[in-house]
């Protein structure tokens, strides 16, 4: 009977993954994907957290499931593009339904949210079970991703040069889009998140910006879910900015801090999973949890000590 916590073998965990070139590429791709998922979710997640939409993110990530299946059925193809389109539509449709229920019916807002995304998800599970094994979505992949399988997937190639598995390619594009959007539209995002009245005063279109953000969120979630699954995506959205806000009090600093955090999550998660022989995505989030706890404890102690000092005005 193997022990629950395997013995920690330094060589096996830290050295072996890089032994051969193939291994190097394989594992490197895994870590790269983890980094990209963490980064893009963390960046867009900063504004999601500021706008108090964390649970909307949770809802969208659950609701994409029926969309994936619908995409396959409607376009009669198992390629990624139909699934992608279907999933995005489902996510956006879900957010639209939630908002309709919240505003046009006597339902309480949290009940409307919970009701909608669980129904979507149930529909999705039913649809997936009916499709049998025609699609390569299975329960595990859905719920905690198969980031370890990413290197196995088809590569994107231009001519005879192959750039790597397509999920990484998609993730790179999404990350670039997010970074560009954040730079170009930073002021608009800032003001619409902080002060509705000022947004109207300045002529910033509140609704359009909201829907644009939701669309970008849906795209990000759909791109990331294959790696980390629907529930851990939520972790990637909320952990980076909440951890960063223990140390930083301005948004640009929080956004920049997402970069080193993403490196820590992906590398740390990889090695943790290597040692424990468990889900890599799960391990990444466990690392995120540890970072969060450390930040929490450190600032609590700092506050404790600073409260002992003579108070300044």
């Amino acid at each position, binding site marked *: 009977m193997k022990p629950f916590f395997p013995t920690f073998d330094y060589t096996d965990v830290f050295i072996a993954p890089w032994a051969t070139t193939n291994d190097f590429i394989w594992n490197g791709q895994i870590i790269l994907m983890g980094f990209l998922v963490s980064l893009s979710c963390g960046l867009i997640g900063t504004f999601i957290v500021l706008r108090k939409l964390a649970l909307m993110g949770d809802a969208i990530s659950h609701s994409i499931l029926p969309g994936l299946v619908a995409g396959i059925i409607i376009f009669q193809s198992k390629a990624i593009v139909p699934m992608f389109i279907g999933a995005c539509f489902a996510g956006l449709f879900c957010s639209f339904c939630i908002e309709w229920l919240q505003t046009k019916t006597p339902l309480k807002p949290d009940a409307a949210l919970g009701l909608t995304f669980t129904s979507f998800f149930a529909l999705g599970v039913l649809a997936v079970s009916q499709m049998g094994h025609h699609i390569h979505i299975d329960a595990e992949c859905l719920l905690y991703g198969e980031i370890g399988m990413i290197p196995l997937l088809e590569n994107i190639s231009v001519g005879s040069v192959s750039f790597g598995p397509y999920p990484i390619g998609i993730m790179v594009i999404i990350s670039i889009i997010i970074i560009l959007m954040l730079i170009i539209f930073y002021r608009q995002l800032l003001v619409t998140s902080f*002060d509705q009245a000022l947004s109207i*005063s*300045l002529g910033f279109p509140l609704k359009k910006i909201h829907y644009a953000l939701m669309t970008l969120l849906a795209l990000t979630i759909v791109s990331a879910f294959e790696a980390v699954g629907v529930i851990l995506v939520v972790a990637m959205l909320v952990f980076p900015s909440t951890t960063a806000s223990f140390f930083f009090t*301005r*948004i640009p600093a929080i956004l920049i801090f997402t970069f080193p955090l993403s490196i820590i999550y992906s590398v740390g998660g990889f090695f943790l999973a290597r040692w424990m022989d468990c889900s890599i995505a799960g391990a990444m989030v466990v690392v995120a949890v540890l970072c969060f706890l450390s930040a929490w404890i450190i600032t609590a102690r700092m506050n404790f000590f600073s409260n002992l000092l003579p108070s300044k005005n």
Partner: protein
Amino acid sequence: MNHIQVPLEIHDLTISYSKRPVLYGIDLTINEGSLVGVIGPNGAGKSTLIKSIMGVTKPDGGWIKIFGQSGKRAYRRISYVPQREMVDWDFPVSVMDVVLMGRYGHVGWFKRIRPKDRTVAKECLEKVNMLPFADRQIGKLSGGQQQRVFLARALAQESDLYLMDEPFSGVDAMTENSIVNLLQELRSSGKTIVVVHHDLSNAKEYFEELVLLNMRLIAHGKTKDVFTKDLLQKTYGGKLTILSEIADQSVKNSVN
């Protein structure tokens, strides 16, 4: 249509929240260079009035014109100082960040913030004695300091119509003085200021012009004329119960 554009003109404004009327048939004209206080009991619709002028709340009936215009072009001419309770003080922005937001309207969507904007922001902070706190996160300020930050932002916008929602509530004496001085200064330079005020005891002192509001416009005019026992009783006294019940019913049944 050949009249001077007044800063604020409201006609037959009616607003209800989830089928309960909050404002009913409001007619109001404010002239340029006025410093007007809006008083009334809690729930009288004062904040709603301000929010509807701002465009945050859409009216169910009637219209509002700002300098003769309505819609997006109108809103740009307003500076708004919100109620302190309505602000998210945990938001990770510094004092300077908030005041700079007031300059965004002058900068345009895609251009960078210019040195001139920073200078204006600093001057406005200086005017409210908040420059030393420029880099502090807004949650780490006292009540009076928080109020002054938003005043500075309103100043930085360099608008012609200022709307303030209970700026005097819960501030220290020093802040109160500086706000009053600021308002007088603004008024002398020809700006128009409408202030929702919560405290009857000093309303007479601060404002030469008053609006008495309780779901309906009870009175509007010079303080010495409208600050009378009779009108105040009408505003705060609650005698218009049938009116509010019926207004209630009518909105409930109205074709919407």
